[in-house]
């Protein structure tokens, strides 16, 4: 039978002069975040195993000589931690300068992805313009990668490995791997192919949404860069399968421009698949029905709502009058929201007194 899972023990430490409680297994970064201390990160994604690559999240622990990366350091009882000393902030600024020097100053549109502004924000926070260590840059753009979904601009890549790790740890797909080291580092798909030639890549878009620099971008959303309207996010649910992933519908004015996974979505916790991430443009497709249609002999012609609704109602009344209550059947949709099916079943039950309704689950 079920053993209750033991509550981890609670301890205390001191962070920025305040006593804080924590559980076994928490990192210093997790504690700092819980407290709202703004410790900067670049290689961190809370869904992924701690990596400790960028060292921006360093903190000073009293009694230790060197600062430590807070995202990989477990809290221990009675530690005394400082997250924001002058020395640490200077150190962080230098790190940001080095990172930025690898990357041409660029205006990264937020349409590229959920995390795409992280580096830009750090540039602003530390007032870094990229001239201090100007010189070699790593990575080269994959200009030949013409797939319409994932934009790749490796000039912006800072080798934080978040894309690689999200692919392996979250998706279990291992489609992206890392070749070479140091300045020759380049994030690459298996065998350095185009993404669509990689058997493992399913185009779930997770790498795009975790990239902190915009080196990977949502190519579909980026088509809307020229639309001059604020970007709005509306929480909803994916329209495809029964997993019911939470998404943010990204719109500019009246245009649906893209989809983002909701990190706090109960069903998906930030994940999406190719359909949920990219298959949204049916909504504003030119072939959408825009007016009611009614039959005129062999053809369907456009009609006003009044005419079409009158025709629809008259047909059902005639059926009921001439053939009784068992004359009419309704088929509900497994895609439409509850309100659609509820209204339809009520139409049959209240209008005909039968239970002649079904949905499409049998086929």
């Amino acid at each position, binding site marked *: *039978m079920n053993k209750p899972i033991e509550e981890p023990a609670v301890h205390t430490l001191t962070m920025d002069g305040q006593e804080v409680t924590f559980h076994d297994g928490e990192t210093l970064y997790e504690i700092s975040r819980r407290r709202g201390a703004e410790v900067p990160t670049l290689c961190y994604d809370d869904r992924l195993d701690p990596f400790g690559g960028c060292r921006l999240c360093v903190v000073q622990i009293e009694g230790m000589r060197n600062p430590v990366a807070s995202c990989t350091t477990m809290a221990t009882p009675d530690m005394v931690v400082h997250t924001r000393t002058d020395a640490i902030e200077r150190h962080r600024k230098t790190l940001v300068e080095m990172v930025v020097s690898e990357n041409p100053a660029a205006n990264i549109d937020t349409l590229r992805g959920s995390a795409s502004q992280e580096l830009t924000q750090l540039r602003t926070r530390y007032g870094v313009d990229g001239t201090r260590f100007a010189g070699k840059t790593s990575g080269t753009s994959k200009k030949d990668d013409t797939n319409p979904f994932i934009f790749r601009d490796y000039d912006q890549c800072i080798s934080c490995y978040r894309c690689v790790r999200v692919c392996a740890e*979250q998706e*279990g797909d291992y489609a992206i791997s890392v070749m070479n080291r140091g300045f020759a580092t380049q994030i690459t798909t298996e065998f350095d192919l185009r993404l669509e030639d990689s058997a493992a890549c399913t185009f779930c878009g997770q790498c795009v949404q975790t990239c902190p620099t915009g080196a990977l971008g949502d190519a579909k959303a980026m088509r809307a860069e020229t639309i001059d309207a604020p970007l*709005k996010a509306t929480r909803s*649910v*994916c*329209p495809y*399968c*029964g997993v019911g992933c*939470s998404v943010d519908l990204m*719109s500019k004015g*009246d245009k*649906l421009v893209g989809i983002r996974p909701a990190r706090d979505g*109960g*069903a998906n916790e930030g*994940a999406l698949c*190719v*359909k949920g991430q*990219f*298959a*949204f443009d*049916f909504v*504003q497709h030119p072939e959408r*029905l825009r007016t*009611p249609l009614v039959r005129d002999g062999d053809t*369907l012609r456009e009609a006003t*709502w009044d005419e*079409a609704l009158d025709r*629809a*109602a008259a*047909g*059902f009344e*005639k059926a009921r009058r*001439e053939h009784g209550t068992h004359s*009419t*059947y*309704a*088929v*509900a*949709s*497994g*895609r439409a*929201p*509850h*309100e*659609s099916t*509820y*209204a*339809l079943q*009520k139409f049959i039950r*209240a*209008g005909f007194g*039968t*239970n*002649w309704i*079904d*949905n*499409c*689950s049998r*086929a």
Partner: protein
Amino acid sequence: MSNPLRDMEKPDVIFAIGTNMTECHPVAATRLKKAVRRGAKMIVADPRRITLAEMADVYLPLRVGTDVALLLGMAHVIAREGLVDESFVAARTENIEAFLEHVRQFDPDWAESICGVPAADIEKAALLYGRAERGAIYYTLGITEHICGVDNVQSLSNLALMTGNVGREGTGINPMRGQNNIQGAGDAGGLPNNFVGFQPVTDPANAARFSEAYGREIEPIKGITKVRALERAADGELAAMIICGENTVVSDPDRHHCEKALSKLDHLVVIDLFRTETAEFADVVLPASAWAETDGVFTNTERRIQRVRAAVPPQGEAKPEWWIIGQIAKRMDIPGFDWSSAADVFNELCSLSPIYAGVDWDKAGEAKYHWPVPEKGHPGTPRLHEDEFPSANGKGKFMLVGYRDPAEVVSEEFPVWLTTGRRLQHYHTRTMTGRAGMHYFVPEETLEVHPDDVSAWGLTDGGWCRMSGTRGSVEIRVEANDRSPRGTVFCSFSFGDTPVNLLTGAGYDPITDTAELKVCPVKIEPAAARANPS
């Protein structure tokens, strides 16, 4: 699902049967992958060597339609090895003696003779699942789209009951629902046998309550299923139909029959986003507002009630379906359609559904309630059957199930098994994905044929073949691929220009009327290129 999605990371043994999860429920599959990476063992049963099979510890490549035989063989081994969870069985179930007696006759050698899986692998799978601390079963339409769909589900339930793998974290019998709101369509009363909240229409108390609520006497008699309604229509015994957002002509089996049925109606009203193949048969086509344009509620496969929201205005004059249906009803003087918002409609639903009694429009917005939510203040029920089962005495009953052949079996004339399914990038009849750039990945349908069969049948990889069954034939491009075993071929039903549903539809489950879409005997011959390939 009996258990929430987050439980998918918790089992120590996973049994996935008839579910091509990495393509059909990809995000759920990532949770299984995580469980496997953390050391969970996985058993995968599927006629095709799907991606999950590649990750499995035990892969059971059963012949299409033989799930019951495989599961009987597994139950036999679990019983023989003394792996029955005695205390669970005693406390929570009934009919175990008869069940143990029943399975004694079905040893793995017998099962092998039917399902084709080596007896040794059946033993291995049974021992793994039988010894699990937390064993979880996942299935989809590979289990239900058979004439024996109910038998298949009951066989799985027997396995879970005998090993006590229900009602706890990381266990359960978990059907993955296919469409985004197919669960909600049932919840909202879109069923011939149930009012909202799965309240049987045949219970006089329910009939009385809804007659009162809806202001009209409702007969306490089950309605017919859609399959039977289409039959009646084809026989000229149905006058009118209203179809909401379903491309019946392409999605349902036996396309010729379906087209005949729809064209015989006096009156067909279709509500949809697009002018679908089905809309072409309509007298009136009404444009619905789409996802992202419509406020509403969906319930997912783990029974989580979630809000969908409008982000952009509807295209043209499109309107929400509840409004459209309400307008028709008002014109017919049917009372009770004076809603002014989706919230009004949903709140009315909640007021009539015991499993939604504790939620309303605002609570649905929190996206955290799993039904049943029997009263206000109730936290919801992520995990079912923790204390009892939904039967009269609260016990889980072992059912005695026997193997039956599919409705049609291979013959000299039709020697090949066709099984149908879905593809990652497409969805149903592609009314949506076909208009969202997904043809970039899968521009046309192909028939998956084992490379040895490709040469044995005189086909060429990338060339065309003609596939015929008793009801019709289609031309389709050949894709040599060893995912399907020899003698079995696979394709999806997503492409209207490759109407595989001309072939399927031999039979239906006697209880649910679910079509046997997973099994269809066919013959395959080389063909010249199709005149008008897509």
